[in-house]
């Protein structure tokens, strides 16, 4: 399983043609306390860069974009009752959605873990 990152701080863990999407611990820290996550409907087709979810902190709403295109096949319903999981485990239990990746070549434009770390250090 490989993990890739976008410049907007989404991550995608790839397992075969399924990608699990969330936001990085860096992004979760920047947002502060997450109080609500709006998740997409299962079955929705998304293009790379489409708004996939919305994460709300006490102060503001921030969009989460699809790292690659595909069909939403699952959402993390546990976040409805426990949005704070995003802060506690951004790269684990705080995942947002799973997609069936439509074009694996789109993954190539994303950063690997080392490149993302360098990217964050430069911010």
């Amino acid at each position, binding site marked *: 399983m490989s993990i890739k990152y976008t410049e907007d701080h989404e991550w995608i863990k790839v397992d075969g043609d399924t990608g699990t999407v969330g936001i990085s611990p860096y992004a979760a820290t920047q947002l502060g*306390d997450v109080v609500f996550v709006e998740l997409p409907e299962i079955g929705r087709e998304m293009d790379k860069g489409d708004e996939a979810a919305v994460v709300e902190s006490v*102060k503001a709403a921030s969009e989460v974009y699809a790292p690659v295109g595909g069909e939403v096949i699952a959402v993390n319903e546990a976040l409805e009752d426990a949005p704070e999981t995003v802060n506690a485990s951004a790269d684990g239990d705080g995942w947002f959605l799973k997609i069936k990746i439509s074009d694996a070549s789109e993954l190539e434009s994303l950063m690997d873990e080392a490149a993302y770390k360098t990217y964050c250090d430069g911010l």
Partner: protein
Amino acid sequence: MSDDTTTELKQTALHATHVALGAKMVPFAGYDMPVQYPLGVKGEHLHTREKAGLFDVSHMGQVFLMSDDKDFATVAKALEKLVPADIQSLKPGQQRYSQFLNEDGGILDDLMISRLAMKGYEHALYLVVNAGCKEADYKHLKKHMPKGVNVMIKDDTLSLIALQGPRAAAILGCFAPEVEDLIFMTHTDLELKGTLAEPVWAHVSRSGYTGEDGYEISAKHEDMVRLVEELLKYDDVEPIGLGARDSLRLEAGLCLYGHDIDTTVSPIEAGLIWSVQKHRRDAKAGYLGAKRVAADLADKTTKRLVGIKPDGKAPAREHTEIQDMDGNVIGEITSGGFGPTVEGPIAMGYVTRKFVKAGTPVQLIVRGKARPATVVRLPFSPHNYFRGHSS
């Protein structure tokens, strides 16, 4: 990110303190201000409700009005031309909340007005105005104050902090026990000592904008740096940023200028009738905008500011459209977010008159989806003002 004007931003005397405390700084009303500290907005909010929060509000404007004849009536009558509050009846040490209105009765700014209690200065008024409006307020005051009434702006010499929360009285009482007996909306000038190496001369009022018991403290810049350093030594005191200041005042149902109130609304529409004393409600009361205030009172206005509680968990932010249950637009959210004490989304907004009653169901259009909500009574979190010791 707003990185365009960073170099031109003004700094308060406590700027270095904020940076040393690890604050995230943001541009706000022309100042580089702390929006949050490492504790985070939610943590800071809850800490203030449970213990004591320390806020730097030095960006706000501090002004004194004094008259050459040293007669309070001269100053009070002059200010009563600009605000709907009753100023002439203020006793030394009393404070009142009011608004500067324009000719049409729209709100130019909201402010706190205190009559000084210090010997020789009982004729003077001390005003605290919003940072974003202060330059316009100063012009407004200078334009309308008659000859013999002097407008003395003190932003360059005085800092202002707020200490808010249930532990505020006990903690400030360590510096001067007298402050524990002040009641809500009164103030005094005194020396704060306690563990301070040198005493600090301060203007202390029992007020604030969080809904909690607490104080606003004005002192000279260099003294304030020392006082804040000392206050932060208390385990129960945490520095609080603008983020939590906003969620606290929203839970307390208090209006924020530029959001819930501005030049398009009158104090009556904004639900601030309590701040217009009875004999000032006449069209002939003699202040700018008095006609509109009286007319709004008689007509009961077409729209009113109300509290709105989204039924679900999704916060509804400023500018969210409010609809009735048939899908007709009836208003707009002016402040909205998440209330950490309430543990859910909260909002304020204007709705047409028919829908102001608490319990009225409405819909909020959040990201294109209609979400159920209910009109509620303000505040969302009960006020804990200190109104005196019960006997």
